C-alpha cells in the first residue's frame, strides 16, 4: 500500500548536536504508529520536522496529501496543516484566554476563507461559513466529549479535558494524519482508558494516528506498528511483539536501568 | 574638515558607548529594554550640577557623587519597578520601563524646571576648554581628551569587572541561563541589581560629560540620547558589551559624518535609520546573537 507519510534519511542538527541521524520510516494510511524511545531520543524533534516547525538538515519527508504526494521539508507549519497533518503538543498549548469553542473554531481557519471585508460587511457567504464553522467545531467537541463545555473558558477545563480539547482542535483542521505528542502524559488510569477509546474513534473517523508515548502498556496495546528512536537513530521498526523482542530496543530501555520493565 | 568631523564623532561616540553598555548589560541579564536608562543619564548630569552648586563640591568629586547616586537610582528602579514583574509577560515589563522613563523625566522637570540650563562652568577646570592639540586644522580640546580618557578608563574597568571578578562571572552566567545560575547558588536578584547599578553609574558619567561638552542640560536630554545609545547597543548586538562599545563609536562617527556631509537636519535621523536598518537586515548586530522569532 502507498504510504501516507514517508520519512527518508532525515537528519537534523542543532549546531554541533545531532538530534536525528538518517532516520527513515513510513506511516501507512489507517494505522496507529507509535514513535517511542527513551527521553531525549529525538521523538519530538521528529514531530517538529514533520509538522514544519523545524526544517530537516538533510533527507526527505513526503506526504500523500490532498494534492497527491508532496515533498514537504521546509514547508511552514500552517502549510503542513493545510496539507492535512495536525498535531498536539507535549506541554499543552491551548489558547488560554479563549473559550473551548473558540479554540476549535480557530482550527477551522485553514479550511475557510472569509476575510476582512467578509467580517465587516457580514456577507451572506461569511454568515454561512461562520455557521458551518460552529457546526463542524461542535461536531468535534461532541466527538471528544466536551460539547457541554463549549462556552467555558479553555483554562477552566480539567487537565485530561484540556488534552482532549487539544485533540479536538487538531481534528478540526480536517487532517488525514494526526500526530499526538504524549497524549496520556499526566492522565489518571480512567482518563487514559477514555483516551484509548478516543484514539480508536479517531481511526474509525478515517484519520491516521502517529503517537509519541512513554506509557509502554498503552503503546503495546493500541499501536499496530512501532518505530523506536534512541539518540536520534532509528533502532527498530515493526509490530509491537517483534519490537519488544528486539535486543537493541531492550538495551536502549533496560540498559538505562530496569525501571521501565 | 573630515578629520575634525571624525574627532567630534569619536568624542560623541564614546559617550553613546558609555550609555549603551547600560542598555546592553541589563538586556543581557533580564532581556528588558530599560527605557528609563536615558533618564538615569539625564539625572546624572543634574545630580552633578546640583552637587556643585548646592553643596559646593569640586567638579571631580561631584562626578563620583553623581555616579553613586545614579547607581542607587538604578538599584531602586530595579527593586521597585522591575523586580515585581520578573515573571510577568515581557509586554508588562517594557511598558513599566516606558512609564518609569516618563515619570523620571517629568519629575526632573518639576524639580529643576523644563528649560535648558548651562552647566556650572565656574566649577569646571578652565584648562578643559583649551585646545590641547592642533594638527593641520584639526582641534582637539582637553575636554575631548578628558572625555575619551574617562570613557576608555571606564570601559577598561567594566571589562575587568565582567571578566575578572566573581560578580562579573555571575553576570555572565545569568546572561546564559538564569535558572541554572540560580541553581548554582548565584543570588540572582543581587546580581541583577548590581548590573543596574553598574550600568547606571556609567550612564551618569556620560550625562555629566555631555552636559559639560555642550554646556547645557535639560530634562528631556535623556530621550534622544537614550534612543541613540539604544541604537548603538542594537548595532553592536544587544546583550554584547564589546558590541555596545563598538556600536556607540560607529554611530557617533556615522552621525558626525552624516551631519557634515549629507544633511545636518537629519542628524538624529541617522540613529533611527541605523536602528531600523540593523534590526531588519542584521538583527543580531555586529557582535550579537540572533533574535528572529522561531515560530
Amino acid at each position: 500500500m502507498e504510504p501516507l507519510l514517508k520519512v527518508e534519511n532525515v537528519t537534523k542538527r542543532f549546531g554541533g548536536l545531532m538530534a536525528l541521524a538518517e532516520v527513515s520510516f513510513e506511516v501507512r494510511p489507517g494505522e496507529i504508529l507509535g514513535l517511542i524511545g527513551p527521553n531525549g531520543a529525538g521523538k519530538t524533534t521528529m514531530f517538529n520536522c514533520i509538522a514544519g516547525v523545524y526544517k530537516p538538515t538533510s533527507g526527505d519527508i513526503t506526504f500523500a496529501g490532498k494534492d497527491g504526494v508532496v515533498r514537504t521539508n521546509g514547508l511552514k507549519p500552517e502549510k503542513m496543516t493545510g496539507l492535512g497533518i495536525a498535531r498536539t503538543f507535549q506541554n499543552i498549548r491551548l489558547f488560554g484566554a479563549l473559550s473551548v469553542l473558540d479554540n476549535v473554531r480557530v482550527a477551522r481557519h485553514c479550511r475557510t476563507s472569509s476575510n476582512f471585508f467578509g467580517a465587516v460587511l457580514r456577507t451572506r457567504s461569511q454568515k454561512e461559513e461562520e455557521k458551518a464553522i460552529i457546526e463542524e467545531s461542535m461536531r468535534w467537541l461532541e466527538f471528544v466529549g466536551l460539547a457541554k463545555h463549549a462556552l467555558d473558558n479553555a483554562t477552566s477545563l480539567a487537565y485530561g479535558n484540556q488534552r482532549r480539547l487539544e485533540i479536538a482542535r487538531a481534528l478540526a483542521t480536517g487532517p488525514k494524519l494526526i500526530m499526538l505528542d504524549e497524549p496520556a502524559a499526566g492522565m489518571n488510569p480512567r482518563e487514559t482508558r477514555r483516551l484509548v477509546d478516543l484514539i480508536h474513534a479517531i481511526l474509525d473517523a478515517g484519520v491516521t494516528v502517529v503517537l509519541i508515548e512513554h506509557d509502554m502498556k498503552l503503546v503495546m496495546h493500541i499501536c499496530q506498528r512501532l518505530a523506536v528512536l534512541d539518540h536520534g537513530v532509528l533502532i527498530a521498526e515493526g509490530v509491537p511483539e517483534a519490537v519488544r523482542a528486539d535486543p537493541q530496543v531492550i538495551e536502549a530501555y533496560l540498559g538505562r536501568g530496569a525501571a521501565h520493565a | 574638515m573630515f578629520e575634525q568631523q571624525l574627532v567630534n564623532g569619536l568624542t560623541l561616540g564614546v559617550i553613546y558607548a558609555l550609555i549603551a553598555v547600560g542598555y546592553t548589560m541589563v538586556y543581557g541579564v533580564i532581556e528588558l529594554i530599560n527605557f528609563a536608562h536615558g533618564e538615569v543619564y539625564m539625572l546624572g548630569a543634574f545630580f552633578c550640577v546640583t552637587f556643585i552648586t548646592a553643596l559646593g563640591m569640586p567638579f571631580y568629586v561631584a562626578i563620583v557623587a553623581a555616579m553613586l547616586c545614579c547607581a542607587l537610582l538604578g538599584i531602586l528602579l530595579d527593586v521597585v519597578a522591575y523586580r515585581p514583574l520578573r515573571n510577568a509577560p515581557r509586554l508588562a515589563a517594557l511598558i513599566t520601563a516606558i512609564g518609569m522613563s516618563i515619570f523620571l523625566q517629568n519629575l526632573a522637570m518639576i524639580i529643576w524646571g523644563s528649560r535648558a540650563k548651562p552647566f556650572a562652568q565656574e566649577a569646571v577646570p578652565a584648562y578643559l576648554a583649551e585646545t590641547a592639540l592642533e594638527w593641520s586644522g584639526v582641534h582637539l580640546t582637553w575636554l575631548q581628551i578628558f572625555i575619551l580618557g574617562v570613557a576608555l578608563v571606564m570601559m577598561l574597568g567594566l571589562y575587568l569587572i565582567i571578566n575578572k571578578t566573581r560578580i562579573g562571572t555571575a553576570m555572565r552566567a545569568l546572561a546564559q541561563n538564569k535558572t541554572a545560575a540560580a541553581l548554582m547558588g548565584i543570588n540572582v536578584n543581587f546580581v541583577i541589581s548590581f548590573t543596574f547599578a553598574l550600568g547606571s553609574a556609567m550612564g551618569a558619567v556620560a550625562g555629566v560629560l555631555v552636559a559639560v561638552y555642550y554646556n547645557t542640560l535639560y530634562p528631556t536630554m535623556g530621550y534622544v540620547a537614550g534612543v541613540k545609545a539604544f541604537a548603538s547597543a542594537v548595532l553592536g548586538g544587544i546583550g554584547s558589551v564589546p558590541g555596545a562599545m563598538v556600536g556607540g563609536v560607529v554611530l557617533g562617527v556615522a552621525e558626525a559624518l552624516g551631519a557634515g556631509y549629507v544633511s545636518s537636519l537629519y542628524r538624529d535621523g541617522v540613529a533611527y535609520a541605523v536602528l531600523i536598518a540593523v534590526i531588519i537586515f542584521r538583527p543580531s548586530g555586529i557582535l550579537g546573537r540572533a533574535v528572529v522569532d522561531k515560530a
Partner: protein
Amino acid sequence: MLAKLKPVLFVLAAAALAYPLMPFSNDYLLHVVTLVLVYMVLAMGLNILPGFCGLLDLGFVGFYGIGAYTSGLLTIHYGMSFWVIVPLACLNGALWGVLLGVPTLRLVGDYFAIVTFGFAELVVLFLTNEIWLTRGPLGLPGIEPVSFDFTWLNPDWYFELIGEVPYFYLAVAMVAFVWLVMRRIEDSRLGRAWFAIREDTLAAASCGVNILRYKVIAFAISAGIGALGGAFYARWSLFLSPDMFKFWESFLVLCMVVLGGLGNIAGALVGAVVLIVLGEGLREILPILGLAPETRFLAYGLIMVLIMRFKPAGFFPAIATASARNPLIKDLKKRLAGYASGEKSGTAA
C-alpha cells in the same frame, strides 16, 4: 448587573447626543468631548496590535501623523472633499503599515516595538525637515473645514461645518463606525486568528494561521484606523504641526488601551475617557500649583507603572467577547442549556 445598567447607559448616551443642541451647551466642553472621541478611535485602532495580536506598537502616532498630514496637504493643495480624503488617508496609513510591517513583523516583541518607535520618530523628523512640503515646524495652517458639497443637485446646497457641534456629531459617527468594524472583526475568522497569535504563536501556526500575513493585516488595519483619526483631526483642528505627533502621544494611546484591558474594545473607550479627562483636569490644576502643564505626563507614567504592577491585564480584561452577541452563539447556548438539563450525566467518548 450589566443588564440593569443598560437603561442608565442608554439615557446617558441619549443625553450626551442631545447636549450640543441645548442652548446652554459649552464650546470648551464640546471640544474636550470631541477630543475624547478622536482618542477613542485611536485607542480602538491601536488595541488591535497589543490587544488582539500581542504586539507592542510604540509608533502608532506615526500613522496618526501620516493620516493628518495626508488629509491636510490634500485639502490645501488639491481642495479635495473630506469624503474623498478620508479613504485616501486610511489607505496611505495602511500602505505604510504594510511597508513597515512586512520586513519587521518577523522580529520578536521588543525589537518590533523599537522599530515602530524609530519609524514614528522618523515621521516626525520628516514632517519637521521637509519644509517644501509640510512647512516644517511652522506648521500647516489654513486647512479648510469639512463641507458637504451638493451644488450638483442645487447650486445653493453647499454646507461648511463650522464650530464644535457638527464635528462632535461627525466624531460620534466615526467612533460608531470604528466600533462596529472592530466588534465585527472580533467575532470573525480574522479576529480569531489574531487572538490565536496572541495566545500562542506556534499553536496558531499549527491551526493553519499564516502568522506573518495576519500580523501584517493587523498592522495595516491598525495603521489605517490611526490615519482615519488623523484625517479627521486635521479637518477639525484646521492646523497641524510636527510636535503634535511626538512619542508621548503614542504612549498616551497605549496607556488608554492598557488601562481598559488589553484586547477589550469597550475598555479602550473607557481608557480614552479617563485619560483625556484626567489630562484636561491636570492641565487646569497644575498651573495653580505652579507647575508646567506638561508635567501631567508624570501622572501618566505613574499610572502605567502601577497598572502593570497591580493589574497587568488592565481593569476590564476580556477578549473575544463580541461573539457572545452573535445569534449563532446565542442559539448554541440555548441548545447547550437544553442538552445539560436533559442529560445530567454528561457524555462519555
